[in-house]
């Protein structure tokens, strides 16, 4: 996925990032209960 992103033209990169960010923010604010493993031990 990272390689594909690197090859994309700039406008596509902006749209791609915005969509990803929207998905993450939605997941976080929709209350995903995922714990981030390992951290802090």
């Amino acid at each position, binding site marked *: 996925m990272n390689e594909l*992103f*690197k090859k994309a033209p700039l406008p596509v990169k902006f749209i791609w990032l915005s969509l990803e960010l929207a*998905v*993450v923010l939605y997941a976080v604010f929709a209350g995903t*209960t995922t714990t*981030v*493993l*390992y951290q802090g*031990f």
Partner: protein
Amino acid sequence: MIERLVMLNFSIGSIAFGVLLIVMPLLMNLKREWRQYIFFIVNIVVFTLTLKSVYAGIIAVFWIITPYLMAPFLVQESEKSISRFLKPLFYILMLVGFLYLMHYDWIIIFKKLPYFAALKFLGLSYLLFREVDYTMQYEYLREMKVRITIVDYINYVLNFYTIMAGPIMRYEEFVTDFYDSEKPALDGNAVMDQAHRIIFGYVKVYVISSFMSWFASYWFGRISEAGNLAKAVIIYVLFAVFNALFIYFNFVGYCDVVAGGAALCGMTLRENFNKPYMARSMTEFWNRHHITLSEWIRDYIYSPVIKKLISGPCKKNLFAGQCAALFITFLIAGIWHGTNLNYVVYGLLEGLGVVISSVRKSKLQKKYGKKGYKEYEKKLPVIIFEHAWTMLYVALSFSFVGYDVIGFIMERV
């Protein structure tokens, strides 16, 4: 025990980390000569704010500074130097301190000792890994004239990007990379690429791994309703596979976030994953999964153990020594992952898996010869079998991570 009322929650999902992701690239690029000092201050502030109590702070200072001060005394100058007693004593004390602070459930003596959870501090395990690397490599670092200052040492051990769960950098590679003046400055495209790595890392953690976790929990809850053994086994396999995928996406996502964040500050972190589920054996799996941990345990557990074994009890059978060293190494690595009995089983399974993979390879090489073995490995049924077996075996061993499988079994026996 006096506990702090205000304590910083620090993980890649915390607001504090999010703010640092945005602010640090700006701060670190203010002036090149200030970078190490800015990073030093931020690392100290972040670490201090995460401390649970004043006492934890005192222990943490001791835990962090002692290896720095002791390193010159651990170098063995001659056969008669005091370091030959001091060195083992130092590592034994470190290990005992670590075991006490981690408070492993199954070490019975801990049940009789008073224990204060507020004494534990952020990144205890990963601090230990780095301190061992620094003290073990100190002589080499001095010989190679690698820059050693208290600022660099603190930046190395307390690096807020990696303190939570790695990747485990080596002192030499951290310092060499940090002061690499030939590294080109990031252009707009590179910034976009790293931003994508960070956001996609969060997608892996909060979306993909979240889904996998949901499926794993769902199937784990259905095992007791299976009715017969065959059905229970199928449901357990489903749970184990989803749980393994949850662990993978969660951890690889975390690594992407911290690697992308560090790259925006001009630091290159080691890659920790290389398509682990493409592995065809357990040995290969551990060369692709949590690579920096695998390399650390290879250098600081496997190497000394195998040296002892092949110069002592396994002098006449080197292969047996190799297998025993592999088993001990992966058992320790497994036990380290968590404090309850499930992780002991996980360690046993990992050790056993790596030994089986080594024995199988050795037997097949004897049977077919080296050239014949290469041909054998190219056969489609062999490829499918090896991929499937590795995936299932990893899933089975990982099912003891995060779920109380032993408790579940004990309830029903």
